[in-house]
């Protein structure tokens, strides 16, 4: 029998994978994909809680999270394109103009 814990553990592992992408990779686009993985992990936990607690609120929340993620990706990728026009690079190590 698959219980709530199973889904939560998958969610936690997926979140860790997304965080690994954000911490260890240096390409801005792949970092963004890591962010998407983390958002998806949170979505999975919310849907699992919604089903096991007999409440529809979790699914509504996931619906909103998906919408916000879509808007966030559009804006973020536009920012990356604007940055690439100025710097000709998407590696985070080349973007150090805020460094003191």
């Amino acid at each position: 029998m698959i219980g709530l814990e199973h889904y939560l553990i998958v969610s936690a592992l997926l979140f860790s994978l997304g965080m690994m992408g954000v911490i260890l990779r240096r390409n801005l686009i792949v970092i963004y994909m890591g962010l998407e993985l983390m958002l998806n992990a949170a979505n999975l936990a919310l849907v699992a809680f919604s089903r096991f607690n007999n409440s529809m609120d979790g699914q509504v929340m996931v619906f909103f999270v998906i919408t916000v993620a879509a808007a966030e990706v559009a804006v973020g990728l536009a920012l990356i394109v604007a940055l690439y026009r100025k710097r000709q690079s998407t590696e985070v190590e080349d973007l150090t103009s805020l460094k003191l």
Partner: protein
Amino acid sequence: MEALLFYIFAALTLICGLLVVANPFTRNPVTSAMFLVCTIISMAGLFVLLHAFFLAAVQVMVYAGAVIVLFLFVIMLLDIPSVEQRSFNLLGVGMGGLGLLAVGGIVIQTILRSGIGQGKNPQLEGATKELGVTLFTEYVLAFEIMGVLLLVGMMGVILLSKKDLK
């Protein structure tokens, strides 16, 4: 049957997720995007197992259909030259991995020890009709705000992609 499907979809999700962030064969962002599609579709399978049919469809349409296409457009538009393998900062990678293991371990330990799923049975039948009714009665204000947010996002993207950004 359900357990078997759960393990198949969970394994697919985690393996493809790992290949998104740490592919041992290539550093190409296009490969990462393709494995992200795979992750998202297997996660839609998990949503179906949780009886969230509408969200599974939305997941496939919005993520696999729109977000990934946007990613691929940007990757191919920028035509990033294949990066030379830079030397790893071993200390940084080690500390990052350690922190990661700590976070994952703490979360999983908490889940296992708190007994959060004790005596809980899957109850909710996530029918699309109920989701729609909840969305348009209890959460109608949030729904409207989300529409404004999408409009703001759209205007921001148009402004940012103008040629002479001021």
